[in-house]
């Protein structure tokens, strides 16, 4: 008996052994199947399931904060995270440091032909866990496939929508001389965790990425002394050095850091020493830099330290008057030096 077609039958996606092929981006059944059986299985929610070209979202009372971030990290899986969790944390943190409550995310995936579906499944599952932990929903998405050799596995762009804190005036241009600089924990963990996995380095180290969502910490800090917080930043690419130089430029001030006060894991310090890197230039994915009025510094530091993501928080310096907008640092030896922007690219494809 032949010729019997089972209505609506489609062989399930072979997530264990299958690979992304060009049809998964072609707009046909294969693409719909990939979205349904892989992405929606992990990330599905009522908004995503509207299935329209755009998602209609409910009104919110406050001001909207919008941000977007692309992620191209190599390797895709690293100690302490993967590109999926990183893509959620990166965008959630950009909202959090604006003092906003993260609400919704969208995600665009560029997949390379031949990429194992099993790995994509792990990435989608990891994104779902990160979204759930951060209390955000993925409400729209897109998938494209590029030919083999034209991508590097997966690139993910996430866009985030958040609701601004009612009285929030945080801005990179708000730092004033006399203000205090706080840092929520150790520097360089993410960058060095990635470096340790690179094929030409492969050194054994227990360093894990600090990739984490900061919105819980920032919400507590806003509740503690929101009016005295001038600005918050997450020092990602370019590290603390780039972040402090941005603040100095935007606010038209100088910065004086205290090297001895900057928290650093011994294994990160050792790896940086070995590779000739400055931990001040190395990327972080779960750290917060906060500039506040002197009067609130003690309370904010205590609030940071009371939060799991801020246990090693420290007061690392202050804002100064400087017409050249230089970032300087008292070295542990007692001298003084500049902390400059990074020249060129120290570690490519870090986030």
């Amino acid at each position: 008996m032949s010729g019997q077609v089972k209505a609506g039958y489609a062989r399930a996606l072979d997530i264990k052994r299958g690979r992304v092929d060009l049809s998964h981006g072609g707009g046909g059944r294969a693409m719909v199947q990939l979205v349904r059986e892989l992405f929606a299985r992990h990330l599905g929610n009522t908004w995503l399931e509207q299935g329209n070209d755009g998602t209609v979202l409910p009104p919110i009372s406050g001001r909207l904060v919008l941000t977007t971030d692309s992620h191209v990290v190599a390797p895709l899986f690293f100690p302490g995270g993967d590109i999926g969790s990183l893509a959620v944390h990166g965008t959630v943190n950009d909202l959090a440091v604006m003092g906003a409550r993260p609400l919704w995310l969208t995600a665009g995936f560029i997949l390379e032909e031949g990429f194992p579906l099993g790995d994509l499944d792990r990435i989608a599952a990891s994104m779902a866990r990160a979204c759930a932990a951060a209390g955000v929903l993925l409400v729209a998405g897109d998938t494209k496939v590029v030919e083999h050799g034209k991508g590097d596995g997966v690139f993910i762009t996430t866009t985030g929508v958040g609701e601004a804190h009612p009285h929030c005036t945080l801005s990179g241009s708000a730092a004033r001389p006399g203000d205090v600089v706080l840092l929520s924990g150790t520097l360089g963990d993410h960058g060095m965790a990635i470096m340790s996995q690179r094929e030409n380095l492969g050194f054994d180290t227990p360093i894990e990425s600090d990739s984490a969502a900061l919105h819980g910490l920032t919400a507590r800090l806003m509740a503690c002394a929101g009016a005295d917080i001038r600005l918050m930043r997450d020092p990602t690419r370019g590290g603390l050095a780039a972040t402090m130089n941005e603040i100095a430029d935007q606010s038209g001030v100088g910065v004086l850091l205290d090297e001895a006060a900057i928290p650093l894991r011994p294994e990160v310090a050792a790896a940086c020493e070995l590779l000739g890197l400055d931990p001040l230039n190395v990327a972080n994915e779960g750290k917060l830099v906060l500039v506040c009025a002197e009067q609130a510094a003690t309370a904010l530091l205590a609030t940071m330290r009371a939060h799991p993501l801020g246990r090693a928080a420290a007061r690392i310096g202050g804002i100064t008057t400087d017409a050249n907008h230089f970032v300087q640092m008292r070295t542990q030896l007692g001298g003084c030096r500049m902390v400059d922007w990074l020249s060129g690219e120290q570690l490519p494809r870090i986030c």
Partner: protein
Amino acid sequence: MKYIDEYRDSALAQHIAAAIRNAASPARIYRFMEFCGGHTHAIARYGLPDLLPDNVHMIHGPGCPVCVLPIGRIDMAIELALRHHAIVCTYADTLRVPASDGRSLLRARAQGGDVRMVYSVADALKIARNNPGEAVVFFAIGFETTTPPTAVAIRQARAEGLKNFSVLCCHVLTPSAIINILESPEVRVLGTVPLDGFIGPAHVSTVIGSRPYDFFAEEYRKPVVIAGFEPLDVMQAILMLVRQVNEGRAEVENEFTRAVTSGGNEKAQKLVSEVFELRRSFEWRGLGEVPYSALKIRSHYDEFDAERRFDLEYKPVPDNKACECGAILRGVKKPTDCKIFGTVCTPENPMGSCMVSSEGACAAHYSYGRHKHAEVPA
């Protein structure tokens, strides 16, 4: 970090700084050259000039491997990547050194050249093993410290029968460069660079030992203190130099006894002389042609010499006219004496090699010290 933190101790640094202040006679100025870029970097990174009295001056020397590479040598590497389609492997700083016609290895890469950054010559060997159909060239730069690993790699390639691997050898020698500086008219005749002594190299000396410096101390009456790259090493060396000058001594002293012996690493020296021989002359950026100042691959290892294999010819190219790298590398000028320092020439857009490597005098001053000389904008 154990064995590192001990050499970065703040209280000890203040203690040595006080000893230098006490020892330095207010009646005179002390001018010491740190030969190595590693020392230049340590001095800038730890802000050591702030700990020194005003009459103790540090002059940056030419010991930065990337800085002394002449343009013509970078051109050769670019030619290998673009014309011979070789995979060129090199250390990261070398990628950004400006070559002729506004080119660099980084730009050659953007033009489609296969230029790869490696942390060691062993990585270049690995790339050669993994790409048997491609020619892989290691762009070998550096002083005596990086030479033994290159020798090991060439021997290893021979042992493995690795036919697609070769080396563009640009290894240079420290003692010849120091002699060149001491013989230069500015130091010997004109007195425009009054040098009172040298901080001798750390890592280079672990290989060559302290003996090669005896000659400078004796012949040129200049004290030499070999020092490690940690900030306390540098401070201690400066104190030892001040004391030698005060006592009229010109000796080779070794502050870095935890790593440097008189004879150096004889095994490494043997290995180097088995694979390399002296070049009759080699052009250095800043110092010009310096006789017997560099190494080439012995004819016994011909097949690993990229210059012979690809029939490369060295063409000297003059530096940018406005660039003072040459005078800066000889200690005749300071980075701030250069008209294009910090304006046309910055780490993002280097015109001269001293602005490229973090060990270069200009890059170190720009990145760590320019706040001291900055004019307040109107």
